[in-house]
Every structure is written in structure tokens, then in C-alpha cells.
């Protein structure tokens, strides 16, 4: 028996050894970014000042009638994405001691009450936009109406609901109630592809694959945290590499001319994954700083960072790119590292090239500052720390061409800045509480209790995921006499062409600049 065990263990050891050798050869060229550490420690006085200023946005733009916060200064409209940023800000403000638990609870309870009562898009999931004063679903002009839903925005909201559920279990039930009310039939398919919805010219609802490399996987992590399998959305493929200042930067290779979705590469999606999930797998309950269990997110993030640092070192242009608002027409741009076939492309949502409004995005800058401790991000911090207005929060950005600040204030910008500062203090923001479902005496949440119940009709009707039966949940089912809803025997049969366990082979980080 002992020999048998040895034989069995010999193969994996050999495989691991081979893997180590292979990765050693592959890692011949690494980016400086991969050796920068994340920032960690108590906030300095200067950083606390930044946090307080950022929070002032959420004081100024709070709507007492709904508990929602305007996505853009003084404009009473918001989305699930921006509300996710508000939850991030709220959590950070509490953890950083800017507000106390009482203030947090008051705000959060009211927010959840509104979210729970939202009129959903065709009774499925939240509409793309809501009026923050009335709480009604609205169209792009903030007039009552419904326009579709965004799987990416909902992904961010799911992620933040999960973070708060784990951090503050006293709010777990109200959070579960909200998510139990959503219908995921048209959001996630059997292959784990994410779909958004829009209403076309004939008032017909169209469901289209949503999300491009970076954002797609970030949103997928939100769904994974609630048990969804997101095989296709979570895979990096299809992607290609753009050579940008010696760095091979991955971009989504689905052609924007055919899909009418821009394949923009920006800091934001990678920064958010780093701050909230620590570039770990969504199932990774540990938080070891500078240890990243996600197979490629850190690697891709490093490339996006390094291309921007290199641009600064070579051309002298301070660079921290993201999508952002403007204080003048066209009011919103994708200000990218790469998009639609071009490096450093700055485009409107229609794809029009507007290089004059390229800017240092403050949320990208501070996110990069938190995740890469480097002389370059020190300089970024120096550049942005006072780009704010009293009682309004931080400016959206600083124009690269020297036109000064973008005098617009948003929940997303200030929220991400706050979560970056919280990351410095506490590390990865998703903190699982000690209640681990792998333990036998685990107490399942309401979400789990419903999902494993075979007689809960909404499970199938609303396309809720099948949970893995951990010892804790199994034990609870046995004790409570719940008939277990099991996943079909062959889940792979539903989607044979996607294997979420297939290893991701990391492409080289740089080639053309180095080769002889």
C-alpha cells in the first residue's frame, strides 16, 4: 500500500517539478511591475485627507428620499455599477473611521430598502439606470422608462453585496433577499457567458454577450461569488497582444466593428480586481499579500500598468488611463491604453477619436498607487492629491494636454479612490468571515438554504446556480430535512467547448524590443 501511495504521489511531484522548470524558463523576461509590492499599512495624515475629501462627494450627493447617491455630481441618476462604487465608499468610510457604524447602518439600510423595491427590467434584474430621487427606472435622459440591463454593472453590484455580506453578517439577510428577487435567466447561460439586454428600435428586447477582456472577468468574479459558473466569461480567450512601449498588452480580439462593443484596455478593471479580490480566485478565502491565486489576472494587470509607466518614463506624459466623464462635450470617453486597433486611443462611445480629452484618471492613478508601490505611482500621488474641491470630492481627472482638471465629480471616481485607500489599510477587500461552509457546523445563509432546496420553484425559474454541496451545507440539509437540489450529473455536457479548469498559458511579456 505504501509503495502504491508513493507511486501515485510520484507523478504529481514530477509534474510539479516539470511545471517549475517550465515556468522558470518562461519567466526569463519579467516586467519590473511584477516585482513591485502592493502598498500596505496605516494611512498617513496625507492619505487620510484624501479619503475624507473623497467621502465628501457622498455627503454632497446623497439623496435622502431613496438612500441612493447620484452617479454624477448633482445629476439625480445612477446605475448598478456606480451604486457598487457607493457601497465601496461606504465600506471604506466606515473602516477608515470617517463615519461610525451608526451612520453606516442608517445609510445601508435605506439603500437596501430601495434596492429591494426597485422596479426591475421586465421583472428580471435591475434596469441600466434609476432616478436617485424617485427610485424609478429611467432611460438615458433620466425620464421614466426601461432600457435594458448591464451584466457587467450587476456583476460589480453582486461583488459588493457579497463583500458587505461577508464583512457585516448582520446585513446578510437583506442582501440575500435582494439577490433572490433577481431573475438570471437571460444574464448567464449554460456556458457561463454573460449577457446584457437592450431594447432595439422595434421595442424588442435583445440579449447580447456583454463584457470585454478585463471587465468581463471582473464581473464574472461577482457572479462566481454567488455560485454561478462563468466558464466562458472567466476565460481570457479570445485575446491578442498589442506591443505598447515594449510591453505585450492583452486585448480582447473580438472585432469591435462586428460586435459594436469597444475592446478597450484600461486600468480600472484590473485595478478593481486587484483591490477587491486581491487578484485571487474568487474561491480563495485567504489573503496573503503579494500572493495571487488567480492564474493570469495579476500578470495581465502588470502589463497594463507597465505600459503606462513606460509611457511616462519615455515620453514624460503622466499616464493613468480609464473610462471617465468630462466636464464638456462629449461628456464621456473611453480613455484607453489600447482600443479598437490603436494604442492610447481615446474614443467616445460612438468610437469617435478625441485625443484632446485624454486625462490622468484619478481613480486609476490612486488604484495603481495602492497596487504597485513604485516611484512612478509616488509621482502620480503627488500629482493628484490636491485635485479636489472642498465639499465636492475629487475631480474626475487631469487633462494630459495641460488643460487642467476635469471639473466633474462622480461616485465611481471617488468611490474607487476610497477603496484604494482601504486596500492600503486592510489588503484585499473581500474578507470572508470565519463561517466557512467547509466546516461541518456551518450555518448557511438564506441564499444557500433556498438554492439547495429542490422544492424551491424559483431556483429553476430564475436560473439560480447549483451550489456545491460542502460538508457544512450537506449537514444542514440533513438536519433540517431539506431535499437537496443536485446539479445535473454531467454539467460539462451542457457546454462541451469550455473547460474552466484548462490551464491558461501566459504569453510572453515582451518580445520585439528585446530580440536581437
Amino acid at each position, binding site marked *: 500500500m505504501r509503495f502504491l501511495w508513493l507511486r501515485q504521489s510520484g507523478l504529481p511531484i514530477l509534474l510539479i517539478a516539470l511545471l517549475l522548470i517550465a515556468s522558470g524558463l518562461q519567466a526569463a*523576461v519579467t516586467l*519590473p511591475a511584477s516585482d513591485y509590492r502592493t502598498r500596505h499599512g496605516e494611512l498617513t495624515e496625507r492619505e487620510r485627507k484624501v479619503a475624507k475629501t473623497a467621502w465628501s462627494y457622498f455627503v454632497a450627493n446623497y439623496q435622502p428620499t431613496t438612500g441612493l447617491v447620484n452617479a454624477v455630481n448633482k445629476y439625480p441618476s445612477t446605475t448598478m455599477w456606480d451604486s457598487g462604487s457607493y457601497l465601496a465608499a461606504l465600506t471604506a468610510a466606515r473602516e477608515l473611521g470617517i463615519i461610525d457604524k451608526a451612520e453606516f447602518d442608517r445609510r445601508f439600510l435605506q439603500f437596501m430598502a430601495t434596492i429591494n423595491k426597485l422596479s426591475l427590467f421586465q421583472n428580471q434584474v435591475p434596469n441600466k439606470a434609476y432616478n436617485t430621487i424617485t427610485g424609478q427606472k429611467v432611460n438615458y435622459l433620466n425620464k421614466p422608462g426601461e432600457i435594458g440591463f448591464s451584466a457587467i454593472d450587476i456583476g460589480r453590484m453582486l461583488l459588493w453585496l457579497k463583500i458587505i455580506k461577508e464583512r457585516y453578517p448582520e446585513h446578510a439577510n437583506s442582501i440575500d433577499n435582494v439577490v433572490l428577487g433577481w431573475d438570471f435567466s437571460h444574464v448567464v447561460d449554460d456556458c457561463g457567458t454573460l449577457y446584457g439586454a437592450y431594447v432595439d428600435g422595434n421595442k424588442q428586447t435583445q440579449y447580447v454577450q456583454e463584457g470585454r477582456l478585463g471587465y468581463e472577468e471582473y464581473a464574472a468574479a461577482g457572479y462566481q461569488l454567488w455560485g454561478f459558473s462563468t466558464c466562458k466569461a472567466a476565460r481570457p480567450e479570445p485575446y491578442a497582444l498589442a506591443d505598447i512601449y*515594449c510591453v505585450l498588452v492583452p486585448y480582447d480580439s473580438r472585432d469591435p466593428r462586428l460586435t459594436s462593443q469597444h475592446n478597450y484596455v484600461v486600468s480600472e478593471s484590473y485595478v478593481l480586481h486587484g483591490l477587491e479580490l486581491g487578484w485571487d480566485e474568487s474561491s480563495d478565502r485567504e489573503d496573503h499579500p503579494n500572493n495571487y491565486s488567480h492564474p493570469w489576472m495579476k500578470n495581465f494587470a502588470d502589463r497594463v500598468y507597465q505600459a503606462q509607466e*513606460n509611457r511616462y*518614463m*519615455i*515620453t*514624460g506624459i503622466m499616464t493613468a488611463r480609464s473610462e471617465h466623464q468630462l466636464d464638456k462635450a462629449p461628456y464621456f470617453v473611453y480613455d484607453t491604453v489600447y482600443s479598437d486597433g490603436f494604442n492610447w486611443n481615446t474614443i467616445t462611445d460612438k468610437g469617435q477619436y478625441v485625443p484632446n480629452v485624454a486625462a490622468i484618471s484619478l481613480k486609476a492613478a490612486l488604484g495603481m498607487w495602492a497596487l504597485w508601490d513604485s516611484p512612478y505611482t509616488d509621482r502620480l500621488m503627488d500629482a493628484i492629491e490636491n485635485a479636489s474641491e472642498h465639499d465636492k470630492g475629487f475631480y474626475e481627472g487631469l487633462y494630459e494636454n495641460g488643460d487642467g482638471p476635469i471639473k466633474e465629480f462622480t461616485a465611481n471616481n471617488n468611490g474607487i479612490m476610497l477603496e484604494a485607500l482601504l486596500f492600503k489599510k486592510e489588503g484585499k477587500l473581500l474578507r470572508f468571515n470565519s463561517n466557512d461552509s467547509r466546516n461541518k457546523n456551518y450555518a448557511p445563509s438564506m441564499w444557500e438554504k433556498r438554492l439547495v432546496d429542490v422544492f424551491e420553484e424559483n431556483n429553476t425559474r430564475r436560473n439560480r446556480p447549483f451550489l456545491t454541496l460542502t460538508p457544512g451545507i450537506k449537514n444542514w440539509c440533513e438536519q433540517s430535512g431539506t431535499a437537496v437540489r443536485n446539479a445535473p450529473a454531467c454539467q460539462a455536457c451542457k457546454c462541451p467547448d469550455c473547460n474552466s479548469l484548462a490551464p491558461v498559458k501566459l504569453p510572453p511579456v515582451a518580445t520585439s*524590443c528585446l530580440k536581437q
Partner: protein
Amino acid sequence: MSLKNGIYSARSYITILAGFLLGFAVVLWVEHQMPKRTETTDGIVLSENFPPLPASRELTFDEAVWARIAWQYFVNNTQPNGLVNAESDRAWLSLWSTGSYLLAVIAARQLNIIPVSEFDDRIASAIDALKSLPLNASGLPVPYYHSETLQPIASAENKTASAIDTGRFLMPLQILLWRYPQHAVAVNQLLIKWQLASLLQSSTPQSASLPVNRWMLATDDPRSSYGYRLYAGSMLRMINPAAGLAVTQPPDGMKMIEIDGVAVPDEGLRTPWGKQPSLVSMPYLLTGLEQGFDARSGEITWRLMRILQNRSGMPAESETISTDYAEPSPDFAAALPGSQPLPLQQQGERKQQSLPGPALTSTRSAFAWYALFRNAWSEALLRQMQVMIEPGKGWKAGFNIDGAINPAIDADTNAMVLESLSYIAHGQLLCLGCLAPPLTAERQQGVTSE
């Protein structure tokens, strides 16, 4: 008359004699303090510890970025006429700085920083602009031009660009002829316009026994030292039949000077107090990067490096003491084919390999040392130069004598950074053997895949 009286009456003579003796002692003492200067007739041969030349290798990621930082200087400072400022944002140029620019373009092409089309465009427009330079009465360029207007700078109108500058300028032209013959016609048209022979208007023969004229520097050249003559001479000797003998004839007999026990040529820097002993490494480094070393320039460079290395507090002898059965690893990275220095971020741990004080050196020579002799010292030297990066502008000149940073950003520094990095990846710039594509599937010794 007693002795006492005798001495008393001779007191003035004794005082004078004592004075003489004292003065003589002072002279002897001063002489002793001066570095030894010896006339030599025997040639310089390679010393036994001369290291093997490094094999070319791929650039590291850091190096690739450094090269692009240097190239940004030329992006910023190219004038619409196709030539480049010698100094950042200051509109003048010389033949020397223009030579630097052309070499930078060639290195940038080698390193694939610019595509072929940009290379051809830059070279063509630069040579076009050079063809339009107004010449002086003797049919040669003047020392300095406005880089915007391409007019001679007032003070330089009647002078002639120095032979040394011209020699450097001929270097990239030579490389163009060999490696990029699409520009050969333009180079020819340029040289047709210039009366290069008049650079060598020389003195009368100094003695009947010498059949050739000694080479007189036509102008008072700041780069008149032995090393620069040696460097420029390799190009200038091709000007006409007399040039070869003229420029290779040492000006006043080569003098050697002994510093820290190492004999190197005395460059005899001219100062208001007369010729002072001095060391100049630049021309030897340039020789290595552009033409490849010969025994003389290689050995001199090697000796200079040993002096600098000793003075920087990291003597070569203190490296790698073997405590194991293994052979001590040699102090040059070139021993291992294709081996690269550690990335900067990982070098922090190798504390023993940082220099104790700031190396008082220029950025350009730090890069050249790094490229030509890859060892712990030159790597440490380069690490200290990281502060010289000025994002968006290029590399700053280097450290001043007092350890302060010289913030000037110029074409020569940034060109030499590019030349050095090109040397690492492709060897010397004028490399005829490099024209042939490498034989298929060259295998590294000792490495087998199966």
C-alpha cells in the same frame, strides 16, 4: 680667526646655500608627487588579464526601456530641417553632435526603436540638410551652426570645424555606406561638396629625416588629446594619400603616465597652467562601440577601467573568493553566453555589489563601460545612473565632481546610450561580419534540448 668668526662672516653665503638646498628639496618633493611620465616607444599590448569580449545578447526589459528613453531626446529635438540640437532645447549643432545624431539613428534602427521607413526618412533629410550647410572659405563646415536656420553661429563664421569633429562625423557616414547602401549616393553627394583635404593643411616637414608632414590641428580643438586623435584618425586617414601617414604619426611622441600602478597615455589636457596630466576615456569607449577595439585601444580602455574600478572602491581583486570546490566565477557576465544582469528590482539584495560612494562619472561613459566590459563594477555603475533619467526628455549628463547631478541633456549622451545598448545586442556599429545572417540554428555550447 676662529671658526665661529668664519661662519659668522660667511653667514650670507650659508643662508643662500641653505635656501638653494631647501628650494631643491621642494622641487624634488614636488617632482616625486607628480605622476611619473615616461616616454615610450614600445607598443601597447594586451595584458594577460584582458577579459574576453562579451557575446551579444538580447536586451533586458530595463535596457529596452532605457534605449527608448534616450531616443526620446532625438524625438524632441529634431528640427524640421532634419538635423538635431546638440543640447536639449538649445538650437545649435556641431559636426560632432550631428555625428552623434546619425549614430543614434543607426542604433535606434538596430534596436528596432524606429521602423525602416522612419530610419530612411531621418537619414535622407539629415543628409539633405547637411548638403545645404553654408561652408567657409576653405570649403569646410564651420564649428557651430544654428540648428534652426543652419547658418553659422556668428563667432564661428571664419573658423573651420575641427578635424576631430569631422573624423567623428565621418564614422556614421562610413556605416551608412556599408550597412545601408540605399543612402550611399546621398553620402557621396555630401562629401563631393566638402574639401576634406584642406583639413590636413599641415606644417612644413619638421626635419629632413621625416618625409611626411606632422599633422597640425587646424583649429584650437578642445578634444586635441591623444585618444581623440587616435579615434578620429581611423576615419581621417582615408581622406587622401597623405592623410594616413599624417594622422597616425603621434603628435609629440606618446607619453605614458602611471596612476595607481597602471600606465596609461597622458592625454595632456591643455589648461591655462600648461599641460596637465589627465585621463580621457571617451574616445576609447567610442572606438570600442563603433569600430570595435584593436589591441591598443582595447588595452588602454581596460587599463583605464582598472584605475576607475580601484578608485570607486570596488577593486576587481576583491571579487568572488572561492569557498567551495567550484571554480570562482569570473567577474564578467560575458562568461555565460546570453546571460543578462538581474532585473533592477532584484538587485537590491546584492548589497555587496553597490559602489560605496557616488561614481563621479558621466552617464554616457557608464553606459559604455556597461556595454564593453560587463562585470559587477560596470553593473553597479549603471545602477547609480538611474537618477539620470528625465522622463520625456532623455538621459541627463552625469555626476559633477562634487557629486551633484549635471542636469544638461544633450545629443552626445543620449546617442552614446543608444550606441552602448546597440553594442550589447548587435556588437559594434560598423560590423561587416554582422551583415551576414547567422547560420541556422546556432546552438549554445553545453546546452542540449534532449
